[in-house]
């Protein structure tokens, strides 16, 4: 199997889907001539022309709405946000138009659209460019939210997103674009709403998603050296969430830690913990703990940023605590 970067995996998915379906087009800031702010759309303008690969003005609200309108009458837009940090300007169209149109029209107008781009913090980009948006977006009925953590999942989930009949939000990671992994060539589709056990163990369940999958695997590797073997449950999709995968793991290990990139309050972990307490109450041997960003805007200084972010060390500490090994 070919080893490719997360960036190229996304690029493959876009290219293959645009070849497969002429209704699919890509729109966003710098996606065409500049070849993508993060080069995810590299070569697509040359291959598909400016009818299907469209540079927009810097106008997130406007072009998100253009995408919704195009989807409403039968096209299948892929709208790139340079980052989800800028997409906050477009949320009216994402939430009030895309997510609700099918429902408020009594089922007449599905909105098959993909909104995609990097989410979360990179390095020293400070407060306005460093926010993980999953928990905001997964709150909304009518949306599907996927957060691929590996190149294979990036390709497979983006292809599923393009084919889905609903608004699907794909949250990528700036820090993931250069990561490498095995990716099946050609048709490779990862179903939306299905988690994957990325590491198998019996002592604790570490439930995570997106960029934190790599952090979780680092933590699992280090713990394995101490003889602690954990399940790493990669949610992959945070809405709809694969509750069965979470509960199956927790029933096996009887302990759980939830690791997410964003803030604690109303975070992904809050929802996971709710499922666990409802479905696995009698299975738990310890309270479920959460690892997340510190409850502050992201600072600029290197040391402060490091302290703010969730990482492998914090994750390991949490796992040891639920195993009562932290004394």
């Amino acid at each position, binding site marked *: 199997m070919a080893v490719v970067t997360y960036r190229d995996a996304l690029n493959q998915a876009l290219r293959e889907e645009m070849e497969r379906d002429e209704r699919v*087009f890509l729109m966003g800031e710098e996606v065409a001539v500049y070849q993508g702010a993060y080069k995810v759309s590299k070569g697509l303008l040359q291959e598909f022309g400016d*009818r299907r690969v469209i540079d*927009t*003005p810097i*106008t997130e*609200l*406007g*072009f*998100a*709405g*253009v*995408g*919704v*309108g*195009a*989807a*409403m*009458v*039968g*096209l*299948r*837009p892929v709208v790139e946000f340079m980052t989800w940090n800028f997409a906050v300007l477009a949320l*009216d*169209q994402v939430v*009030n*138009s895309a997510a609700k*149109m*099918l*429902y*408020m*029209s*009594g*089922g*007449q*107008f*599905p*909105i*098959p659209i993909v909104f995609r781009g990097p989410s979360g913090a990179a390095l020293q980009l400070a407060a306005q460019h460093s926010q993980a948006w999953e928990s905001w977006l997964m709150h909304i*009925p*009518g949306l*599907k939210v996927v957060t691929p953590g590996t190149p294979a999942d990036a390709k497979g989930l983006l292809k599923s997103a393009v*084919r*889905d*009949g*609903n608004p699907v939000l794909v949250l990528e990671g700036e820090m993931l674009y250069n990561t490498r992994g095995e990716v099946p060539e050609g048709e490779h589709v990862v179903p939306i709403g299905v988690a994957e056990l990325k590491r198998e163990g019996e002592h604790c369940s570490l439930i995570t998603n997106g960029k934190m999958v790599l952090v979780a695997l680092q933590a699992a590797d280090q713990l394995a050296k101490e003889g602690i073997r954990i399940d790493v449950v990669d949610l992959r999709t945070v809405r709809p969430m694969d509750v069965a995968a979470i509960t199956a793991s927790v029933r096996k290990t009887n302990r759980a830690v939830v690791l997410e990139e964003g803030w604690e309050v109303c975070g992904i972990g809050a929802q996971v913990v709710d499922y666990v307490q409802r479905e696995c109450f009698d299975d738990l041997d310890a309270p479920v703990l959460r690892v997340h960003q510190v409850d502050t805007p992201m600072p600029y200084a290197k040391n402060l940023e490091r302290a703010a972010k969730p990482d492998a060390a914090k994750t390991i500490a949490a796992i040891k605590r639920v195993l009562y090994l932290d004394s």
Partner: protein
Amino acid sequence: MTRTRSAGPAPQALAPQAPPAAAAATNGAPAGGPSGDRGLHRHLLREMLLQRRFEERCAEAYALGKIGGFCHLYIGQEGTGTGAISVLRDDDYVITTYRDHAQAIARGIPPRAVMAELFGKATGCSHGKGGSMHLFSRERNFLGGHGIVAGNIPIATGVAFAIKYRGGDQVCLCFFGEAAVNNGAFHEALNMAGLWRLPVIYIIENNRYGMGTALERASAINDIAERARAYNMPRSVVDGQDVLTVRAVVGEAVERARREQLPTLIEARTYRFMGHSMSDAVSGTYRSKAELEEHLKRDPIALLRARMHERGEITDEEVAQLDAEVRAVCEDAWQFADSSPEPTLDALTSDVTAETESTAGAPIAAARS
């Protein structure tokens, strides 16, 4: 640049196209479509009368608690929506705001389905899940009533984008109020429509007030059609109370959109005779009774009727007959809505997401040339 001041009847070049077939069937226009000016004028008069009587029944139903939520009536503005929508083909698109009942009817959604939606019934045009502000019809390419001011403007732009993408010659008609032109979504969307030359006609229904805030208190310029200059877009100002002039000006813009794929911004100067919604006084707070009375003299229905009288196109008896007809249509719509079933409880959780891969959206016809 287009700038229409003429108050005359529709020029020959734009003259009488048949109204949408479904509208004719639904609203009882003469079989075979209107013939010549007289038929057209009679059709437009009947459409506006129907909308007026329908909205009056809505006010009544709202007072009785049969309609809930917010309810924004179109009374006074009928000339704009009726004239504009009358030039469209069935395969064109209409998208509008929360003040959408009358435009939905003008576009050919049966009054029964509109009233049933307002009553929150399963037989409503959005199956009881949209209500007053969210009327939709896929069959009639009516892309909604939208509740966020200016939110429909980028969507209309995307519909036009899709038309051009597919090589079609349809157009998208997009209605919004004058207060929306101060919103970022308006500017973002018009910039792209001008930049990409999209077949969309933006119609500002300038009824003078965004809720209770007068245009002059909200906009840095009063001649708001001038905003089109910033986006390299043809523009027109039209008397929105004159249905025939609206029809002529919109018809010209529609032809330009079909032929050259150019967008147009049209400011229709109109006035709403009622409050912003059912919850505010008609006058006395943000506008005076005297001002209202002055505008009532330019009722779009009375203006067309007077013109038809002048030309000998209609008699008082015929007007009374038309009025009786449309009242009967509204009564029938009311009875239908009132006796229709509520949505079943499984409707609560249906249509949150589409079950399967969608082939989505109303079809876009292939290019005609």
